[in-house]
């Protein structure tokens, strides 16, 4: 059996679903962040896979690299936000942080 596009996409979907699941179910903000990372990575897989099978040259890989860099930056900022949230609310439990409602 030859590994084709569908397999890559399947992996990507699994990662995406796990990411969503993590974001939605975890109470800890850090865990939520990790879910986001999973989603980003599933997107990366898609970029690379389409680049390989879609005859787009290396554009997919380049974008994937960008995304990785962005993810790093984003993680840094997000962690900083989490720290600040912790400072403000003394917790990182996202269920308790619902001031956006008001």
């Amino acid at each position, binding site marked *: 059996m030859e590994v084709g596009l569908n397999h890559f996409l399947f992996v990507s979907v699994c990662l995406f679903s796990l990411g*969503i699941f993590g*974001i*939605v179910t975890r109470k800890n903000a850090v865990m939520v962040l990790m879910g986001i990372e999973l989603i980003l990575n599933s997107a990366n897989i898609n970029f690379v896979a389409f680049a390989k099978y879609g005859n787009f040259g290396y554009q997919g890989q380049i974008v994937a690299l960008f995304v990785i860099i962005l993810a790093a930056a984003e993680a840094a900022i997000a962690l900083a936000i989490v720290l600040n949230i912790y400072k403000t609310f003394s917790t990182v439990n*996202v*269920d308790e*942080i619902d001031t*956006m*409602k008001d």
Partner: protein
Amino acid sequence: MTGNNLIDIALIILFLPLLGFTVTLFLAKKVKKIYLFETLIIIVAFVLSVILVFLKLNYFPNATTTSEVSWISLGSISIDLGIMVDNIAVLMIFVVSLISMLVHLFSIAYMHGDKRYNRYFAYLGIFTFSMNGIVFTHNILMMYIFWELVGLSSYLLIGFWYEKKSASDAGKKAFIVNRVGDLGFFSGILILFATYHTFTFDKIFHQISLGVIPFNSEFWLTVTGILIFCGAIGKSAQFPLHVWLPDAMEGPTPVSALIHAATMVAAGVYLVVRVFPILTSGALEFIAIIGALSAFIPATIAITQNDIKKVLAYSTVSQLGYMVMALGVGAYKFAFFHLVTHAFFKAALFLGSGSVIHAMHHEQDIRKMGGLRKKLPLTYATFLISTLAISGVPLTSGFLSKDGILAGTFAFGNLTGQWFFAFVGFLVALVTAFYMFRLVILTFHGEPRDKEKYDHAKESPFVMVMPLVVLATLSIFIWYTPNPFNPEQGAFLSKWVKAPTIVTPQDSRYSFLKSDEAQPEANVQGIQNVPTPSSTEAANSGEEITFSKTYTEAMEHAHIPAMMLSLFLAGIGILFAFLFYQWKKLDADKLAEKINPLYKLSLNKWYFDEIYDATFVALTLGISKVLAWIDANIIDGIVNGSATVTKMFSSFTGKFDNVVVDGMVNGAAYMSGFIGLMFRKLQTGKVQTYIVLVVFSLVILLFLFKSF
């Protein structure tokens, strides 16, 4: 020596009094003796008018000289100011200037000490100016202009003692009643102008003689004549507008003599004399009827009046009625003759009454006089002469002129079968003699009834008596004719006054005024105007003969019987006056009681004032009150009402705006608020909920759009 010199003199005579008026009025306060200037001016004017009369009657007895300048020109229409000097005008100006001068002199003493002394003389000046204007004018518009100006001066002089309410009332009444007549006069002018596009007498006469008449209808020519005559009804105080003249006696007595007896009131007669050529038989008949009524009604009133001036006032109306009636029956020359003689003797009577009033310290009630002939011999003598004249006693001027008029009515009766005018004429002659002698007897004869006033009375000073003497002298026959029983022999009627050329269409004239084809040359009456260069138009009309031979002969036949009858009636009148008041053989009071209704009617002046007050005056004032009320409440009410309605409407729309329109706006806001309230339930504030929603939505969207 040409006609132009006459015009020059006439112009000077005309404008001198205006100068006097202006100077006197402006210097009245500053120069105490300025009244002497005014008097001097009038004396000069009188001298000039004597010269004018002399020149005119001697050198140009048949000419009519006119001169005109354009006053306003408007396209093809030119309104001229012009002067016309003919025999009638110069005779009239002589009368006006003389009486005006005498009244000035008389007033110097009579008005002495009045606080508006100088102003009084100024007013006399403006009056004389206006009156001269009426006399000299050559067109009907100017006639109207000066007509109104004499009205003004009459108003000012009647109301001269305006502190008295009765005086200011009388002035107002005179002006307004005159305006009633003037409305007719002005309407007549409107018709004439609309038809002929000119105001000049000559030109109008000429056109009528060519057959151009208003609205192409003889009826309208008659109407025009009557309308113009309305002016005379007002100014000459004819029935039914005579009511102002007795009230006008509120003015100073010399004014009554000048304006309300001799000159201004005669202007109405003068006007009819001027427009006589255009009067149709219908108009003449109307004029005669008005004249007859005016002669009769006031005469009956005069019998019972007790104010010396009121008696004279009513007799003036009555005598003016005579003149007007004379014109109406065609006795043109005698009407003018009577105008002149009446002016003199009536002025004498009024000034005489002024002298009496002066002597009696402004007492005018004859019941408080009596026996004054001893105290005022000269006044008495002149008064008596004038009374004889007005009563038509031989050797006086009044006898001549009145007799002529009566003969005219007699002839008229003979020719037309209408004896009404003759009847009225003779009846009034009787009444006149009676009430005039009643006046003389009550004033001068018998015993004094107010001893105190009588004792203080003394003859007036020279400047007051002299005019009386002059005027009384002029009431003697000799100035007019050498034969005291036939006026036609004198120059006045045979040479100076000429019958006019009648221009109305033949079939609208009285038969006896139709031109006599058989007699192309002048007949006995010496009729036609001899054309001069400036008055050719009137004379070229081709109508040479005016009064037919028939009428002249009828007059001659009527002369003797009329004279006899009038003498007889005057005698009876005088006799009864003596029986009642001098010899007391008959008791006037008892008679008055017996015929009480008639007596009351006469005493209350036939209730004319009351009737007018109750009808015209009340009606006008009533209408004006009603209209003012309507104006303030209904018309203005509509305006204010529409404002109120607008305000109500706007407050309604304001409410509507607040409740409905704004309600909808607010409602929309509430609605969105409500919906928002519902949807904010979704807003948990939890990031994870949002993400679930996003993902679900995405999935749904994917399913929805998967077909694409």
